[in-house]
């Protein structure tokens, strides 16, 4: 480390960092944002390609032809669904058995921590029905899963029917090397979670389920099908899973390759790919697609039934049929052929999909940005924090605070402990106090939970943290510098770890938190800075993301609607954490919010 031990060079470097610290920070921030937005520019992206050898070479002719039969089955399924007022278990079991599958059912039940107002459920009881197509001439060590959800009302009837039609067609083929499981799950994600937990003998979310009677070996890949109309105009691919985990890019490549082959329009984030990358509209379109993916990944929920498979190292994607106003329509037979082709390719796999990327962003279905290209955007933002930390005044503080005589470490401890206790309160109290809130206020349980969360969040702002006055005299100059040092390091490590697991969440938090936290001191104009800090706090970040998301999906909302959406996003976040183990809510409540509170504390230091 010659640079750091040579005193002259060290002094020169320190001098440079001191003089140019703020300009370098501003340049890094702008560079990070520009780099990120530039990722959508087509010459900077790479064309997708199939990385797995086993899936590349054999393109055979698909012969599935029972599309019409599938549509009539859909009507039958709909009638039985209405009659059974839920999942028509006996009809499904008989249908699967008549197609030669080994059929089993699984019942499950779960009591949500508070009622889910979006889907109107609280005490959920259901049954999953699945049939296993045994591979005729292969050892039964691996399996593939095709799943279609059984949803209330008119949705997804065609999906279940196509599933049954495919099952019948697949049963007559001899080339299957893996068992295929056809799963119809009730109550979408809860049913899928129960089935996966039963299959893998785990119990991570407190679900009650009956053990699975039939099993098929280790699952290599899964496809989830959502189809609600007889004809579609395009197929949408949904990749984002729980906690922002994505399946291997090869699965997206597989889907795209088959869409090209069969001439089906394929979209991602509901947006069709454009060819005019050199115009402003073309670039904006790609940027919008990428931003949608970032926002969906950041919120950590599973955007399709496939999302829960990813946790078990099973590559999964959801294929959704969309019927909109276009001339060219695709019928069920073509969709069936697409699925047949994809499943045949997945059948050829010798090992799990691992050759292609696991971390990527897709500005369109045929172009991708890998982690090596998008991580520097985050790195530039993280460097700002490190530059601020190594700001010589702060560094000197650290060595001085290690002296036995200064009270440095102890004065820092109080704000840190209080911030984290507030974070723990934000995490635990909303769900635990809902009965008490419902007794005293005229609100429903869901509203009680969400409003308690917001109340605790706001109460944290009003907490006067300056109890260090009781400990050791005035809030010293030394004290806030040590606290800022600790908080900046804490934020840097936290954002780094978050970006490694879920890049989008880490990046969005970095974009809003880094500017204010890097430049905060108690000597700023307090009123203005307090307003700016609150406007850039994690809760407002969520609010902005809600509005931006609505803009991007071309369904802009007014302020009041946006506020209602924001409340429902909070309740969904808490529910996702309780039901499926999503980590976004605990991360924000237990780590990001206390970190932000520590900076709030610095602002009001004296």
């Amino acid at each position, binding site marked *: *480390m010659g640079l*750091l*031990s040579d005193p002259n060079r060290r002094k020169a470097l320190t001098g440079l960092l001191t003089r140019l610290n703020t300009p370098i920070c501003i340049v890094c921030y702008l560079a990070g944002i520009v780099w990120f937005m530039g990722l959508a520019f087509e010459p900077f992206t790479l064309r997708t390609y199939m990385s797995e050898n086993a899936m590349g070479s054999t393109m055979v002719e698909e012969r599935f032809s029972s599309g019409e039969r599938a549509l009539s089955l859909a009507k039958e399924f709909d009638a039985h669904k209405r009659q059974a007022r839920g999942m028509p278990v006996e009809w499904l079991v008989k249908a699967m058995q008549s197609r030669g599958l080994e059929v089993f059912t699984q019942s499950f039940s779960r009591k949500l921590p508070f009622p889910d107002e979006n889907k109107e459920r609280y005490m959920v009881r259901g049954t999953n029905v699945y049939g296993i197509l045994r591979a005729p001439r292969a050892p039964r060590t691996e399996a593939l899963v095709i799943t279609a959800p059984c949803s209330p009302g008119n949705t997804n009837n065609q999906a279940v029917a196509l599933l049954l039609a495919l099952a019948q067609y697949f049963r007559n083929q001899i080339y299957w090397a893996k068992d295929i499981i056809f799963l119809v799950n009730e109550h979408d994600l809860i049913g899928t979670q129960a089935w996966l937990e039963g299959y893998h003998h785990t119990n991570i979310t407190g679900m009650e389920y009956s053990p699975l009677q039939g099993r098929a070996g280790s699952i290599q890949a899964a496809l989830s099908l959502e189809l609600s109309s007889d004809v579609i105009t395009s197929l949408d691919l949904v990749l984002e899973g729980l906690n922002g*985990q994505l399946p291997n890019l090869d699965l997206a490549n597989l889907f795209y390759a088959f869409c090209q082959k069969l001439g089906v329009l394929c979209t991602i984030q509901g947006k069709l790919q454009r060819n005019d990358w050199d115009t402003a509209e073309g670039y904006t379109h790609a940027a919008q697609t990428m931003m949608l993916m970032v926002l969906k990944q950041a919120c950590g929920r599973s955007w399709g039934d496939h999302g829960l498979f*990813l*946790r078990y*190292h099973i590559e999964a994607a959801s294929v959704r049929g969309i019927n909109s106003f276009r001339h060219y329509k695709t019928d069920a037979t073509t969709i069936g052929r697409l699925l047949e082709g994809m499943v045949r390719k997945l059948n050829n796999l010798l090992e*799990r999909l*691992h050759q292609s990327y*696991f*971390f990527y962003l897709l500005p369109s279905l045929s172009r991708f940005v890998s982690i090596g290209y998008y991580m520097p955007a985050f790195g530039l933002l993280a460097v700002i924090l490190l530059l601020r*930390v190594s700001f010589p005044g702060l*560094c000197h503080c*650290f*060595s001085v605070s*290690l*002296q*036995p*005589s200064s009270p440095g470490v102890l004065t820092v401890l109080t704000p840190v402990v209080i911030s984290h206790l507030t974070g723990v309160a934000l995490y635990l109290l909303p769900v635990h106090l809902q009965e008490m809130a419902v007794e005293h206020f005229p609100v429903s349980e869901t509203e009680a939970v969400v409003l308690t969360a917001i109340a605790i969040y706001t109460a944290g702002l009003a907490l006067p943290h300056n109890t260090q006055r009781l400990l050791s005299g005035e809030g010293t100059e030394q004290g806030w510098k040590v606290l800022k040092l600790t908080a900046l*390091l804490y934020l*840097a*490590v936290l954002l*780094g*770890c978050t970006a*490694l*697991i879920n890049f989008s969440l880490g990046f969005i938090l970095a974009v809003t938190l880094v500017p204010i936290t890097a430049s905060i001191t108690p000597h700023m104009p307090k009123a203005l800075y307090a307003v700016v800090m609150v406007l850039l706090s994690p809760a407002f970040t969520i609010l902005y993301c809600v509005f931006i998301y609505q803009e991007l999906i071309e369904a802009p909302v007014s302020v009041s609607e946006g506020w209602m959406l924001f409340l429902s996003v909070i309740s969904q976040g808490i529910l996702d954490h309780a039901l499926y183990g999503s980590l976004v809510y605990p991360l924000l409540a237990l780590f990001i919010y206390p970190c932000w509170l520590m900076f709030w504390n610095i602002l009001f230091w004296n």
Partner: protein
Amino acid sequence: MAAPLTLLLIVAVTIRAVLFRSSWAELISERVEVVSPLNAWKRVVEGLALLDLGVSPYSGDVFHETPFMIYLFHFVVDYAEIVFMVTDGITAVALYLSIQTYNKNVFRKQKYALESDRYPADCLELLRSPKEMFYIPLKVAMFYLLNPFTILSCVAKSTCGLNNAIIALFILCTLKGSALLSGILLALATYQSIYPLTLFAPALLFFLQRLYIPVNLRRSSFWFFTLQYAFIYVGSLVVITGLSFFLLGSWDFIPSVYGFIFSVPDLTPNIGLFWYFFAEMFEHFRLFFICVFQINVFFYTIPLSIKLKEHPVFLIFMQIAIISIFKSYPTVGDVALYMAFLPAWSHLYRFLRNIFLVSCVLLACSALFPVLWHLWIYAGSANSNFYYAITLLFNFGQVKSLNLISHFT
């Protein structure tokens, strides 16, 4: 000073008790950074079960603890949590008393040197006052008890805590001047895991310094005392090993414990340097590299003893640090033991120029260990290289911090 120490012990016991009762205990006891195949509690329970069945606990290559350990837990397995908390308490109190004795010695030497005018004028600011040094033993005990690494190690019921207790008691007896007890405890520590063998040299140097015997290879007094101490040490070691033989009735424990430590057959990832290398290595070269890696642990004793013969306590600290970095199955409990000594030299911190950078690296690595483990094992998106990169960086940070601290002398 009894009251603050008692308060500290109560706080530490409370934290550990709370964690024992929570759902985190199981999670922590499976983390590879905290437990290793040598000291995992799961394996102790397995060994006890085999012993109860009448089979040798070393059959099946699961259990790698010494026979003393099995018999200790045979009697106290129902109170295991209390045993580990008491062990941590013993270590803390032993460190407290040893640093108190060390400070008294240092202060006395400083007084004599000051009276005989041996300090140049510009060193006067480095002189320490009793007031400054009053709180240092408490800080050392606090650094050990409230260190997250120690707490994790205790909650995981890793027998590393017991090894640390024996080493801490050894240091206490050495600093108090009792050669017999020091030799016996060092033999016990060596019996537990071989690496404390290297602490023989600093202990010997301390006693020679204390008895005013000059370290001169031609003096008979030097050889006389060395032979005495070596006799106590080797004799206790032989007696302990013999007792172990009679406890279990066979020599099985030697290949299972010492053979295991030396030949590193189990390549479970941990925070050490061995596992990745030996996972990649061809069988043909394995013996050569085992020898190289093991010599690496023992080798630094010689130059360090020559250089630091005037400062044996500092040499003990350096040796413990080197053992915990380069041993074959390190865990965070080993790291916590040497980190506890840092406040003893707090008056010299102004000379640590890059300590900030190094401590940030260590903190960031500790935070990144579970993240990259998750990405490798659960998400499947990373691979062993990512985890080993963090391991390397962690060990590099430790080595660099040792490097900086060695500038104290």
